[in-house]
């Protein structure tokens, strides 16, 4: 539901739910979450595209950029203080959220 309505976040909700409610290991929870989210994402993508709520150009450029970014991210994963980054982005998300609410 969250994934379809808001276009993101299904994974985080699912991983959290599976680790807390079903005591699944982090690793397995991630893998299982992807296998559930992927078909859901394909379905909601089709619904968005069919209704004309999609931009091919932006999507292609973002996808290319994010592939490069994902590679960089996984390379530097063990070298950077991830907790600090989580905090910085957590705060940015809260500020952005407040901005979006009243924008």
């Amino acid at each position, binding site marked *: 539901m*969250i*994934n*379809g*309505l*808001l*276009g*993101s*976040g299904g*994974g*985080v909700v699912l991983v959290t739910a599976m680790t807390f409610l*079903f005591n*699944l290991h982090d690793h*397995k929870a991630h*893998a*299982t979450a*992807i*296998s*559930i989210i*992927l*078909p859901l*994402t*394909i*379905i*909601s*993508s089709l*619904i*968005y595209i069919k209704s004309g*709520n*999609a*931009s091919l150009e*932006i*999507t292609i*450029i*973002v*996808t290319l*950029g*994010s*592939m*490069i*970014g994902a*590679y*960089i*991210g*996984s*390379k*530097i*994963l063990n070298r950077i203080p*991830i*907790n600090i*980054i*989580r*905090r910085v*982005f*957590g*705060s*940015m*998300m809260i500020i*952005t*959220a407040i901005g979006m*609410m009243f924008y």
Partner: protein
Amino acid sequence: MIVFFIGILTGILSGLGIGGGTILIPSLVFFIKTNQQIAQSVNLIAFIPSSVVALIVHFKNKNIEKNMIKRLIVPGIAATCIGSLLAIKINSDMLKKIFSIFLFCMGIFEYISAKNFKKNN
């Protein structure tokens, strides 16, 4: 060009295990001025290729709990359809407001998970 950089930043964050979409969607709305629905569709579609690759790797490593999938896939699909159909029906500003509440919760979640992460180490 801005779009490309937003993509790279999103990818880096996803690679680090921090939600990429929660950054991508507001960035597109603020800098490119797309409506909320388009930003969300970009995030949804961009997720597909990388997750197909990830899924193949996980499948080979036998990290997937088939029982869990059986229990969650049908309600998941039904809920996704309802969610997506709602998203394309309501107007962009309203959707933006709903998204901002969600983003707020996710921001707090990042904070809490940063704390837990410390404890585990």
